[in-house]
């Protein structure tokens, strides 16, 4: 190439750089972007090919999962779940069939379970009167323990206690006793009951 040709090329290069610089300065990029139909542009992109080129392992490694989880609101997610619909899709019977009940029961510590039960409270809820009256237990007790002598003794003693209560109430009224009175010797009451009621208020 001749020296004059080289000089021309350099000048052309210089002119082109100046022109391009001026054109770029003149372009309003925002206006240009506004004219671009992004949706149409995206549709032209071959997403599969793009994704295929992405190194997913590297991408995942870059994610701070802990930070991501911290920003999540589990309550909001749970609230969006339709639990009823979810449960209705579960085949409970199938689920139960898969459970090995024997193994489950074998794992249960019955002693610990019993220890947790409040036996006195449980017994207090039992209506012993009804059980005795409405079951065979009643007749068994009656046959095994009932006799003319025991019936007579029960009757005599009950009458005695009734009269004791009657006189006790009147004496307490007469002496204007109020409040809780001792029911018996402390050692005996400690074993069989509590000092909660006075003689005047005890039912017959």
């Amino acid at each position: 190439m001749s020296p004059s040709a080289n000089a021309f090329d350099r000048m052309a290069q210089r002119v082109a750089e100046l022109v391009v610089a001026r054109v770029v300065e003149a372009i309003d990029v925002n206006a240009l972007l506004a004219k671009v139909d992004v949706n149409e542009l995206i549709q032209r992109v071959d997403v599969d090919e793009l994704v295929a080129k992405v190194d997913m392992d590297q991408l995942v490694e870059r994610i701070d999962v802990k930070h991501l989880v911290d920003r999540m609101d589990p309550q909001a997610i749970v609230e969006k779940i339709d639990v009823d619909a979810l449960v209705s899709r579960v085949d409970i019977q199938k689920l139960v069939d898969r459970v090995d009940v024997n193994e489950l029961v074998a794992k249960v510590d019955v002693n610990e379970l019993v220890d947790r039960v409040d036996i006195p409270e449980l017994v207090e809820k039992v209506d012993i009167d009804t059980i005795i009256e409405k079951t065979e237990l009643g007749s068994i007790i009656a046959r095994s323990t009932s006799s003319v002598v025991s019936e007579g003794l029960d009757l005599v003693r009950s009458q005695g206690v009734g009269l004791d209560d009657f006189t006790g109430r009147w004496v307490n009224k007469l002496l204007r006793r109020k409040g809780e009175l001792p029911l018996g010797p402390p050692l005996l009451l400690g074993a069989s009951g509590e000092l909660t009621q006075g003689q005047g208020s005890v039912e017959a």
Partner: protein
Amino acid sequence: MANATPRRNGITRQGHYAGAISRLLAFLVDMAIAWGALILILLTISIAAALITGHAYRVTQFRAAGLVVTCLWYPIYFAYQWGLGGKTLGMAVFGLRVVTSEGRPIDNRHAWLRTLILPISIALFGLGLLGIVFRVDHRGWHDRVAKTCVVYDWDAFGARLRWLARQGELPPGAAAVRR
């Protein structure tokens, strides 16, 4: 349902201070038994004496001896039984028992002290017995001196169960009527 429990219904009386009426009735029963037993003893002695000596004896002929036997017999009757199990026959009938003021079983010392003070409680116009009626713990002089008290000792709850069981054996209508 909870109200059906025996304690809340007040039918578990074991360990509660026994009232005056039960104690009086038990005492009367004891006096009757002791008197009957004394008659039996004197009768046996007179028959034995008649068999041995060949002469018929009447109790009225030996008043002094009879009085001595009587004065010995009653304390023995009460003290022996109280010392043995804390109750006499009459008290057993009414489900009563003598215990110490704390609630422990009594021993022979308590039993004899109580027996010896009891006549004094009765003799002074019954003044010593007023505490049984008017005191909260129903203790007379003999109880206070001997540091004892009388409590209910019968299984009221068992009696209640037996009563209910008998109700269950009756026809439904009859049970309802009796209730």
